[in-house]
């Protein structure tokens, strides 16, 4: 197959993977602010998209190895030359697995999907010897247990502190804090994850001889990756946002959301800065569980947590198997690669059509308006002074509406004040 054409295909698939990476990981940063109503759904994904775009341009250092040492890359002792065809097969495995987990609403790590895909393809290309099992255990498997447990413990403690220090009436103030913590997570995501795709594209270009061995990624690669991840983020993986924000822990309150995001942000920043890499997705999921345990009355749905854990366990083998199949097919000259791409596109289209059977979109996130309950009493009084006739009906219906919408304790006050108004009038 023509090398230039192959490289173009790989770049196209890499950008598609970048897109799925974006919408798979929107939830990590934005699930809790959307769930608590700190940000409106569309605004939240908009902020996340912009920060991912900015973050992608900020990442200067692009990985020297695609797989982070999982595959013995390079020409030296027993190393595997990862050809563009293998990268293509790996990307297909990663994309299809990302879309399948999205369809099921499972927050699984996109990097693990990419590593899994590359591992599967490398095994077909060079046998099991190509994989460094020790690195697999120490960089993927053990952190996958440590990350959620750590985040859970920290988030549990942070939630306890938040509820101990702040009285009930003031807890809506945490919404403002949530905007900042979730924005930091988004920015960190942009700097980390867009880099992976840039690495894949750059290394493909180097392997094909279009770039020098020590070349930095060209500007168009950086820009394309940044736009792809931002577009993916803006598309919003609403199914995963729903799982993380609503299903895993029921009724997340602003204080919980803030505590969970503060833990996520702190854990991710310290892990990336101090050099013990933890998966953002796993940290974010752990934080949400921890905050559910930290508040009395909140319930953690362990069945959902179990499904997520199973998803994490099988991400690498599953993406690897898909990629291995693609790599096997790609061996058939001269049309194998084309069949791969066509089948992958058909599967992607099929998953998209299947997802339309029960759509989950920003409309599924009905959230209380920020500031709706802030001063119901005062409002009623002020309104009464101005137009006493209208107030009664207005405040009454408003209070009823509010009560219907959510079983928050505050609307009771509103009804009380409405009753008071009634009495005074009578």
């Amino acid at each position: 197959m023509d090398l230039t054409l192959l490289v173009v295909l790989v770049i196209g698939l890499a950008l598609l993977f970048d897109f799925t990476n974006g919408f798979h990981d929107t939830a990590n940063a934005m699930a809790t602010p959307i769930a608590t109503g700190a940000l409106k759904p569309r605004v939240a994904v908009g902020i996340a998209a912009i920060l991912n775009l900015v973050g992608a341009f900020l990442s200067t250092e692009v990985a020297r190895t695609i797989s982070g040492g999982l595959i013995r890359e390079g020409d030296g002792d027993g190393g595997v030359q990862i050809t563009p065809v293998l990268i293509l097969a790996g990307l297909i495995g990663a994309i299809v697995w990302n879309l399948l987990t999205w369809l099921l609403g499972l927050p699984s790590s996109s990097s693990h999907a990419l590593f899994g895909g590359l591992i599967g393809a490398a095994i077909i290309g060079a046998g099991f010897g190509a994989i460094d099992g020790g690195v697999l255990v120490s960089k993927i498997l053990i952190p996958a247990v440590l990350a959620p447990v750590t985040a859970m413990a920290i988030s549990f403690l942070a939630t306890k502190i938040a509820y101990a220090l702040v009285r009930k009436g003031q807890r809506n103030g945490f919404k403002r804090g949530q905007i900042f913590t979730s924005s930091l997570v988004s920015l960190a995501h942009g700097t980390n994850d867009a880099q992976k795709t840039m690495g894949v594209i750059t290394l493909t270009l180097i392997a094909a001889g279009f770039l020098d061995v020590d070349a930095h990624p060209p500007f168009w690669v950086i820009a394309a990756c940044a736009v792809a991840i931002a577009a993916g983020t803006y598309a919003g993986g609403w199914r995963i946002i729903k799982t993380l924000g609503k299903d895993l822990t029921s009724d997340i309150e602003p204080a919980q959301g803030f505590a969970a995001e503060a833990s996520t942000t702190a854990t991710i920043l310290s892990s990336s800065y101090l050099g013990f890499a933890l998966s953002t997705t796993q940290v974010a999921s752990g934080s949400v569980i921890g905050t559910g345990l930290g508040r009395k009355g909140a319930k953690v749905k362990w069945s959902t947590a179990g499904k997520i854990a199973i998803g994490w366990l099988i991400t690498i083998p599953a993406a690897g198997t898909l990629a291995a199949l693609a790599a096997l097919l790609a061996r058939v000259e001269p049309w194998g690669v084309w069949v791969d791409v066509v089948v992958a596109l058909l599967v992607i289209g099929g998953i998209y059509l299947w997802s339309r059977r029960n759509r989950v979109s920003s409309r599924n996130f009905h959230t209380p308006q920020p500031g709706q309950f802030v001063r119901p009493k005062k409002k009623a009084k002020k309104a009464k002074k101005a137009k006493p006739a209208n107030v009664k009906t207005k405040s009454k219906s408003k209070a009823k509406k509010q009560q219907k919408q959510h079983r928050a304790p505050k609307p009771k006050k509103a009804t009380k004040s409405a009753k008071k108004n009634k009495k005074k009038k009578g």
Partner: protein
Amino acid sequence: MIAIDWPAFVTVVVASLVAACGIVVVFSLALRLGDGRAPWRRPVSYALYFVCGLIVVLGIYLIVPAFH
């Protein structure tokens, strides 16, 4: 070879714990002192919000590789 860098992991856990609980304490106190009658509460609350802002700036510093 299976090698887990346990000291690095413990450092990460301690640092995250201190950072997360620290910012929650500061922000919570800022919220708590935000209203009340005593005249000293408001300035202290604003000062604490300012500390939160500094922590966010520190976060951005840690995220952007060009800074270090």
